[in-house]
């Protein structure tokens, strides 16, 4: 496999190009995804390559965008429906959780819904409370859905391909602040299946489970800690539904201490589920309570000075790991 450096958004874009070239049943709809290539450049060049039949700009109508995808997927196509910002999930939620996710089960298995929803989440852009959220906990709570949050260019490409090839409704949540992050990406088409965690760094002293962009921050923290003689096992679950509990629990059984980090508010975040599962399955191995580091219970503020205090970063992850190690 030849690899080269690509940005996160270019890697995602390459995945879209290659899977659309491979599978004529894949099409893309959304607001400004065609003529403009998507407001985050996620879909650049797709219209030129695949034409108006397969790459379409829609009216502002998220219920119809997702619903169209549900109907077309039920008929065997593989729609990619873009929900520009994750925050807009509220105007389309019914189609996501009551329709796409439940159709197969309600219908006794009579239909599959290979729909992929793409969206962008995360804070750090001074985009304020309605354009900065991380709502993966909602989606992960819905039986029938699958939810991935790529944390590297490699995963951005692999997970969008994995999502589109998956026969279930999937949501791929890109992180707005990672768009320009670079990393090695194979040229070939490849898929990362959902439910397989990535052990980013191996370590013995403590496990850190980080979600989405927090993986980047956690890696920085792990490097700093490493220099201080603390060996961190950093795990990126990649998908929060399904969740690769096995990998996480195995790591905790080795390190006996674990910190979970995400951008979403702590209360009711996906960290709560991960924490619960860990203590249910590795209770006797824990030398300290499972710890969480996440946003405070407030909407995302606009002011950079507040937003910086709001979203966890490497320094706070490092401090949280230190506290965890000190706990007897």
């Amino acid at each position, binding site marked *: 496999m030849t690899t080269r450096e690509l940005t996160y958004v270019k890697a995602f874009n390459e995945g879209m190009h290659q899977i659309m070239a491979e599978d004529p049943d894949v*099409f893309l709809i959304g607001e400004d995804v065609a003529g403009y290539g998507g407001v985050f450049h996620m879909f650049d060049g797709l219209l030129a390559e695949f034409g108006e*039949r397969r790459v*379409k700009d*829609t*009216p502002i*109508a*998220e*219920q*119809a*965008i*997702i*619903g*169209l*995808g*549900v*109907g*077309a*997927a*039920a*008929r*065997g*196509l593989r*729609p990619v429906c873009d929900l520009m910002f994750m925050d807009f999930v509220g105007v389309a939620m*019914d*189609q996501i959780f*009551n*329709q796409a996710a439940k*159709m*197969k*089960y*309600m*219908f*006794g*298995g*009579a*239909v*599959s819904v*290979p729909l992929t929803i793409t969206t962008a989440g995360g804070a750090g852009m001074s985009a304020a409370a309605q354009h900065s959220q991380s709502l993966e906990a909602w989606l992960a709570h819905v*039986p*029938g859905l*699958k939810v991935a949050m790529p944390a590297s260019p490699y995963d951005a490409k692999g997970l969008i391909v994995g999502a589109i090839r998956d*026969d*279930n409704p999937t949501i791929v949540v890109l992180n707005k602040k990672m768009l320009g992050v670079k990393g090695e990406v194979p040229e070939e088409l490849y898929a990362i299946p959902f439910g397989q965690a990535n052990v980013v760094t191996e370590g013995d002293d403590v496990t850190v489970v980080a979600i989405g962009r927090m993986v980047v921050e956690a890696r920085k923290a792990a490097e700093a800690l490493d220099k201080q003689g603390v060996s961190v096992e950093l795990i990126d679950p990649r998908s929060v539904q399904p969740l690769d509990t096995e990998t996480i629990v195995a790591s905790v059984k080795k390190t006996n201490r674990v910190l979970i980090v995400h951008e979403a508010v702590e209360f009711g975040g996906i960290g709560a589920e991960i924490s619960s599962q860990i203590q249910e399955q590795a209770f006797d191995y824990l030398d300290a309570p499972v710890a969480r580091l996440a946003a405070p219970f407030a909407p995302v503020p606009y002011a950079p000075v507040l937003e910086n205090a709001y979203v966890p970063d490497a320094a706070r992850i490092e401090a949280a790991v230190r506290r965890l190690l000190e706990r007897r």
Partner: protein
Amino acid sequence: MTTPTEAIDEVVPATRDVVLDLHRRMVRIRRFEESSGKLVETGEIPGFLHLYVGQEAVASGVGAVLTDDDQITSTHRGHGHAIAKGAELRPMFAELYAKTTGYCKGRGGSMHIVDMSRGMLGANAIVGGGIPIAVGAAFASQYRGDGGVAVSFFGDGATNIGAFHESANMAAVWDLPIVFVVENNGYAEFTSQERHMRLVDIAERAASYGMPGVIVDGMDALAVREAALEAVERARRGEGPTLIEAKTYRFFDHQGIKGMRIPYRDPAEVEAWKSRDAIRLIETIGIERGLVSAEEFEGIWAEVEAEINDGIEFARNSPDPDPADILDDVYTV
């Protein structure tokens, strides 16, 4: 107060086959609904049902012009749509009986009947929820160029919800092969049309999307059939969607047969509409025009009765789902 549509002066031409076809569709629906309504009262069928009695001409008139390759989406009041689209009564009853032989293996019940083999893409318990899905089905036909058409059925009340608006606009912008059929029975649950919108004719809403809006007598299956045929052909020709408003009425309560806790409808109104019963209407037409004899119509009722009894027996004798399978079909694996 909603008043029944007038019998149309203009006579819709019909052949014997068409009359027989529409009649059988309607009788199957009528008897399925009356029977299942009673079975829910006796507790033999669990949950609750929204019955389609009174509105049979709408689903039947539309169903008659569709093939198994055309798709429909339906509502909480969906039995009629499924049957008109060709669904079998055995798995219909079995589903209401919550049996593994049901259309959804007992997982879905009344509000989620599906039959993919006949292009019945599913009933829906969320008002408006099925409309965008039908748009997607139509999109799939356009994308594949397979000549298929989608029909979305929904009620007067549903035209006030956002999903209707978004779907109609998107379908119009893309000239999708879809027909929106609003069954205006004058009520959203217990709220009359004049209390939930300012319009009398919902067909007028089509203009907001630049699509044709057509009003049809929803008690006259022949008229519905003709309007549907025109809209479906238009859609097949790639000329885009149509909104058909069928003026109709439900003879029973919002749920079940006789719920009316509070008399939100004037009994005179109910009687006036019942006097235009769609099945009686087509029988009268068939006999008056010498196309079908009274005995033949009776024969159909009898055949359907046998089918109903067979369906109920089948359902009764079918096995319950096994709780051990509760996690099956959450995901495609």
